């Protein structure tokens, strides 16, 4: 990639997530400026030193919990104040709810849904307006292949990601006219801290590094939606084509 053409100022919300960290490293290695947002200040500081060593020019940190919506405008203001412009924003946080618990514990289910859907929508709303004023840039969000069809085993997570999918689809149309691009990233299984305790099928599980390469490419090519690794587009197509009469009987 040509360093002079590539985005230089990157804002990452949820910067301590495995995928975000891998993406940040790729941008760091081409000398980017990074504005990192996450709730854990100690982890942020360590990630910052790592990115500096890997070549980042400037790393700024902002501590924020996903539910602190009133801090969002301040966060956005600081990011723009730090670097003048932001070329790329990436929203990368999320949790993986325990579906069984969510079926009986309503508070838990609602909190998980809010973290994965509502708070992301809040972030997108604030970012969208700032990017609109700027008149260019890419807003990217990590969704999931789980949004393609609600499955019995994780529909709380899946429906939250579906909300994001619809939201970004609309936002994309709105911002396109203003020169701002919206990218939805749909990873399959990725070996990160979030999935460390799951029994993931080895052959279908990607490394955060390979997912980060896909994301960086999708950003530079202004893709609308990207499945990563790409074979998930095919897997999900098949899953979407299964008729409901059969689908509801499957334990997927």
């Amino acid at each position: 990639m040509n360093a002079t053409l590539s985005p230089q100022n990157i804002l990452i919300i949820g910067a301590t997530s495995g995928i975000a960290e891998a993406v940040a490293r790729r941008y760091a290695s081409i000398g980017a400026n990074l504005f990192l947002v996450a709730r854990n200040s100690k982890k942020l500081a360590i990630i910052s030193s790592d990115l500096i060593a890997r070549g980042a020019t400037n790393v700024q940190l902002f501590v924020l919990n996903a539910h602190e919506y009133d801090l969002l405008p301040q966060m956005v203001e600081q990011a723009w104040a730090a670097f003048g412009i932001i070329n790329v924003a990436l929203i990368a946080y999320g949790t993986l709810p325990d579906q069984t618990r969510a079926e009986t514990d309503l508070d838990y289910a609602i909190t998980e849904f809010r973290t994965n859907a509502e708070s992301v929508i809040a972030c997108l709303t604030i970012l969208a307006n700032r990017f609109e004023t700027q008149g260019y840039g890419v807003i990217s969000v990590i969704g999931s292949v789980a949004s393609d069809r609600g499955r019995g085993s994780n529909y709380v997570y899946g429906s939250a990601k579906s909300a994001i999918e619809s939201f970004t689809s609309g936002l994309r149309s709105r911002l396109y006219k203003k020169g701002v691009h919206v990218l939805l990233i749909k990873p399959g299984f990725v070996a990160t801290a979030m999935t460390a305790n799951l029994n993931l099928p080895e052959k279908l599980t990607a490394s955060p590094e390979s997912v980060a390469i896909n994301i960086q490419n999708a950003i530079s090519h202004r893709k609308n939606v990207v499945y990563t690794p790409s074979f998930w587009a095919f897997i999900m197509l098949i899953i979407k084509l299964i008729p409901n009469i059969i689908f509801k009987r499957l334990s997927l």
Partner: protein
Amino acid sequence: MVELLSWGRYPRQPQHPHAVFWADEISHVLGKIVETNKTSLIYGMGRSYGDSCLAVSNQVVTTQGMDRILAADWETGVIFAQAGLSFAELIQITLPRGWFLPVTPGTKYVSLGGAVANDVHGKNHHVMGTFGRHILRLFLYRSDEGIVECSRHIRSDLFVATIGGLGLSGVIVAVEFQLRPIETSRINQTSIRFGGLTEFFQLTASHDHTHEYTVAWIDCLATGQNAGRGHYIMGNHAKADIAHTHTQLTLAPHKRMKIPFDPPFSLINTLSLRAFNTLYYHKQQQKQISRCVSYDPFFYPLDSLKHWNRIYGHAGFQQYQCVIPQRDGQTAIADIMQEIAKSGSGSFLAVLKQCGDIISPGLLSFPMHGVSLALDFPQHDQKNTQLFNRLDRLVHEVGGRLYPAKDAHMSAEHFQQAYPQWQQIEAMRDPRLFSKFWQRVTQ
């Protein structure tokens, strides 16, 4: 779910991984394993051949997610990083800035923690000693003390028990060490064909002091007149050249071929071995060839073939690496080679290396002033046991020793005599960490 083996895939005792990504998770993850399984072990990248990276409980803590650089000073070349960081990644970051690893083993797919725990050595042992010599400080998690800093001056007891300590003194969380400066990413290499061991010892005597990296490959199946023939390879980091300033510190391209699955049988047998070794020996027509090569093929020729350990099939293989004290080097190596040639077994690569007299701070460090020999043997239970017994006796008689990182067979008796400080390690061992190797050689 992935089950992990050691590099030699023998003994075949799959390990169940529990990943940690941050230092403050170690206590929790280790605690959970220990609750039901009593003990655990840290697994870096599994590049140890035998059972030293296998937990008695088969439940290991994996550290590859702890791969961050905590601080780097590009003026002084001091780098401080989490223990899961691989040498491959380190090179990607340090080389373009003019720094290289002070010591590197023959693969870059090792973790920093694993390199410390085995106190790895490289082709420059005669001038740089082991990796442990370049460590400034360590952060270690112990289940009884939490995270402890140690160095030559602070908690030096823990420091020397951790370097080469086989992952038993605690969990290495982060390591600070000194890099070595380089002007270019290339190596000026000279390869000299030699006809026998005597010639090898003459070559090391006359070239080791002017070359940072030296190693020899020998045809271990050659007998009679040809016994001990091979290639002696020496190299130095190339100096900067004013004409090519922009290409001087370039990373090697990322190209790897892959052995995608276990072949149904071992691809290594006496016939293919003999053909390979003869071919390799004669490949070089001239007696001496000098070339300027990239650091990657020079240090890591095997890394270009991902999972090459699979060519031995399901049964796996064992490496036999010993070091013989200087005084008896030549005769003992000749005897060992003769035994191996007689057995008709042996490896693609028999590697001979003159080790220097620089002493490591580590209590269980493997290298000693003398000659080290390393070979791979496809796993055949009876054949290997018989041959290894004979070789062990030869090594033992002259006061040599075997490398725990490569071992899956040595007896408790031989280990305890060769590493008299083992009891100190046992006394300092974190009771939650216990490897199959340690169980075998101490109980």
